[in-house]
């Protein structure tokens, strides 16, 4: 199969790879670049575990062609922490016991990040809407909703 070059910025770093034409962003990130913080769940756009942020918008990487991401800025959970210092969302998930088996967590956190980046003080309804494309088997969602609201509160405190 024809290989095509793709170039994008991943978590602030320039990346250039050859991918098979038609390869998904999910495959490119996991298998070419080695960013396994992006989880391969249903791979048909129904579980949300592969969600990443592309140019500020939440995208399902399993339904996004890698070659359509040329020149884009892509964010994944792999790039959220600064060394040992966790991102406020990661900290809130950790402190709020919002993760159990952990497989949905990266997608949940990216969905939450996309929300908080455009709406730093979301309502509970905003949070529910933001994660409604993400499936969690373990938690019953409530701890996740609470963690995202806690991260928003922590952000507003640090901004004040």
């Amino acid at each position, binding site marked *: 199969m024809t290989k095509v070059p793709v170039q994008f910025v991943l978590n602030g770093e320039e990346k250039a790879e050859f991918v098979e034409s038609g390869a998904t962003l999910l495959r490119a990130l996991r298998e070419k670049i080695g960013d396994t913080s992006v989880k391969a769940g*249903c791979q*048909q756009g*129904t*579980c949300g575990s592969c969600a990443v942020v592309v140019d500020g918008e939440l995208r399902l990487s399993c339904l996004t062609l890698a070659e359509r991401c040329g020149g884009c800025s892509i964010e994944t959970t792999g790039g959220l922490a600064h060394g040992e210092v966790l991102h406020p969302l990661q900290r809130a998930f950790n402190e709020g*016991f919002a993760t*159990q*088996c*952990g*497989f949905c967590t990266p997608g949940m956190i990216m969905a939450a990040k996309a929300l908080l980046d455009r709406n730093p003080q979301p309502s509970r309804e905003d*949070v*529910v*809407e933001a*994660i*409604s494309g993400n*499936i969690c*088997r*373990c*938690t*019953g*969602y*409530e*701890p*996740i*909703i609470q963690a995202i609201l806690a991260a928003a509160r922590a952000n507003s405190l640090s901004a004040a």
Partner: protein
Amino acid sequence: MAMKHGRGVAAVNYPTGMNLGGDPTQALVHSTPTGNFMVTLSSVDLGQGMKQIMAQICAETIGVPTERVIVDTADTDTGPHCMGTFASRGTHRAGNAVIAAAKEARQVMLEVAAEELEVNASDLDTDGAGNIHVRGAPQRSISIFDTALAAHFKRGRSISGRGMFLIPRSYPDTETGAMKPSTCYAHACTVAEVEVDDETGEVNVLTVKNVFEIGRALNPKMVEQQLVGGSWMGISHALYETTEPYYPSREHGGRDFNEYLMPGPGDLAETEVIVLERPAADGPYGAKGPGEMCANPQIPAIANAIFDAVGVRVDTLPITPERILRALKAKAAQESAEAVAH
């Protein structure tokens, strides 16, 4: 046609593990040269937190901080035998095995410390912070780090222990059929409130109030996690999930997450969870298995609430709008037949 309100209650007794052929788990514990402790198990952490709980149990038994314990799980080629992580048995069975192994390791550790301190091992105690001292004379002490070094490099001892926990197989009495299928039961009671649309058959769960009796909560936050998630899963089993909606026909089974339904973050019932602790006589530090049990009582409670709301008993899961409408239709037909007969 209207929204009908109903309330239902249900309680469960739930066995911890199963002994239909004996139910063993084994564990090994050994110290590294620096006095960290390694727990080896074949049991699997599925995300329910077994590694954390086994580390706590081992640390408590040996007398070291939890951070000093490393738990390795899930390799049946190299690990000691475990029946598996199922039937809510992980904490109870593996926990008891880890206690046994850790006790044996602790005994060796105290013997080595006794040689180093030139005292009797039975006079020694741990402070839980990484030191061993003579009971009543805390200044006469040695760190577990130095004890492990002495064991490895000076005394030629292995600070290690083997742990076995076996619930023996229970055979039914040939006359009466009576047997003892489990030694340890967790309990739960749920009250569910629902709203049923008798035109569409749709059920909206308004509240689920749960009380769980789980022995001792070894890690209260993780127990709460399990119970909140389990309560949600109970609703999901009652109303949404099935791979074969027309079983035994395989038709119309969900092929993806658009068709295999589960309640999402927008469908949550107001959930309350209360924990009662009644330590189990044969549980590790009193713990029972809260795992599967916590997703069960919601199902009959919701079925009862639906009966309370619209007067139909749906005894096949999940209780879909279609099943409710068919039951309502059958009920109406029966009622009109009875009216004619009168």
